[in-house]
């Protein structure tokens, strides 16, 4: 008989996952960070052209032709809704929920995955970086002082790995680097797209350099990749954004959160323009979120961790299929 009805992972992983979730909840309870829930099914979604979303239709009961029908989106992260809570005065909050990203399936991608996202009111980025290290050591049940943590700025790491300056886009330098280092495909694929060059070189040539580290925190991303982070006040070439890697595998992404509604709307518009240029349709801006920013988001830092990947890395697995009961091809 076909055995694909069975869980893809060993049953032991159900227990390990439950244990991980318990430790995380305990960690935040001790720090008085409130657990919250926000909708997975939302009326709007993010504009990021690099995130593809699932959409579906809501219709009135037994009447598919009704005027009240509307398109709803499965959220790619609970970020906007959680920031609405922060703006409303919730204080520090965390959430463990599912997030959905269309088209992302592979060894370390599952289109539906579990995310841990939290926001710390009053924290700057270095404080949040310390807390991430604490959380991961707690989950791994190791003393944080015994964990091999490598903190490095994006610029230093990039330069050390490639000799290139990531803050200055010099196409001829990037092309000759690609030519000489076995990634000449980048020349055709990336063309004149600065951000795509950074992604290409980072994933092919920089990430392997941090594979030896149990935990690497890479901070101060180039401003062009600021996403929802603030631009650094002292050095406007970089953003207050960091990423966490376990043995070279991306696990988390954190920001000192952008609170300026005008700047936020500008980024939405820019991303929508990028979407159109890429042949995608524009996305309706989340007005609830923009109004929340307009009413005032407290200074805070926030981060999201992919929990399936964290479980995969802590158990030294190479594929998410080994740690998820019913991954995409069995869902």
């Amino acid at each position: 008989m076909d055995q694909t009805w069975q869980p893809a992972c060993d049953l032991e992983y159900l227990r390990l996952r439950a244990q991980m979730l318990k430790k995380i909840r305990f960690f935040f309870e001790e720090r008085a960070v409130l657990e919250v829930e926000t909708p997975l099914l939302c009326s709007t979604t993010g504009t990021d052209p690099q995130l593809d979303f699932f959409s579906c239709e809501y219709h009135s009961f037994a009447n598919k032709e009704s005027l009240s029908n509307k398109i709803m989106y499965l959220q790619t992260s609970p970020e906007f809704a959680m920031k609405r809570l922060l703006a409303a005065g919730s204080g520090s909050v965390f959430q463990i929920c599912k997030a959905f990203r269309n088209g992302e399936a592979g060894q370390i991608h599952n289109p539906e995955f579990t995310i841990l996202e939290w926001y710390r009111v009053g924290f700057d980025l270095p404080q949040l970086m310390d807390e991430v290290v604490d959380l991961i050591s707690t989950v791994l049940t190791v003393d944080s002082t015994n964990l091999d943590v490598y903190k490095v700025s994006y610029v230093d790491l990039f330069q050390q790995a490639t000799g290139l300056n990531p803050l200055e886009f010099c196409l001829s330098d990037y092309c000759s680097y690609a030519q000489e280092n076995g990634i000449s495909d980048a020349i055709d694929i990336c063309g004149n797209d600065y951000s795509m060059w950074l992604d290409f070189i980072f994933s092919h040539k920089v990430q392997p350099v941090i594979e030896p580290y149990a935990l690497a925190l890479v901070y101060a991303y180039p401003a062009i990749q600021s996403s929802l982070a603030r631009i650094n006040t002292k050095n406007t070439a970089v953003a207050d954004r960091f990423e966490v890697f376990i043995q070279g595998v991306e696990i988390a992404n954190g920001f000192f959160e952008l609170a300026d509604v005008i700047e936020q709307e500008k980024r939405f518009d820019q991303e929508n323009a990028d979407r159109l240029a890429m042949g995608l349709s524009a996305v309706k801006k989340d007005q609830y979120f923009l109004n929340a920013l307009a009413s005032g988001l407290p200074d805070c830092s926030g981060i999201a961790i992919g929990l399936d990947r964290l479980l995969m890395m802590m158990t030294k697995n190479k594929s998410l299929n080994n740690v998820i009961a019913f991954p995409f091809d069995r869902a």
Partner: protein
Amino acid sequence: MAKYSTNEFKAGLKIMLDADPCAIIENEFIKPGKGQAFNRVKIRNLKTGRVIERTFKSGESVEGADVVDLEVQYLYSDGEFWHFMVPDTFEQYQAEASAVEDSVKWLKDQAICTMTLWNDSPLSITPPNFVELTVTDTDPGLKGDTSGGGGKPATFETGAVVRVPLFVQIGELIKIDTRNGEYVSRAKE
């Protein structure tokens, strides 16, 4: 031929790359949380046998390669071409030197092997993993040596030269692993 999008990439898929037919060995989907998605693939050029790494932008499409594998029987060589036949249909194919170069030394008449066809013409021949061939020439072994330590070259009926243990004699049937070209054992006749 059909086109394949990067999301259909998987081991074994045959695609055209730089005008050559290739087989995907490994496909890795790379995507930063915030950023561009790529597919990094390990790929074998089926003409040259070389394995290379290539990266595609996710979502891109590439042309499929019309490549199929057939079980065939080796018939003979006329010096310019090597002739093979599909046992079931008696259909015959002639392969050029470039298609048989690495395999021909393992093939004796009637041997069954795998032929890879590209657009219906032979691209390569893969011998079985193990073949049994007769030694036609080798130095006489030392008396009493049965350990096989050291070894000596032996020439086989097909022209292949393989290192064999010292006790192997002319006329013996020997089992050889064609993947690494190494002696396995004496074969039972």
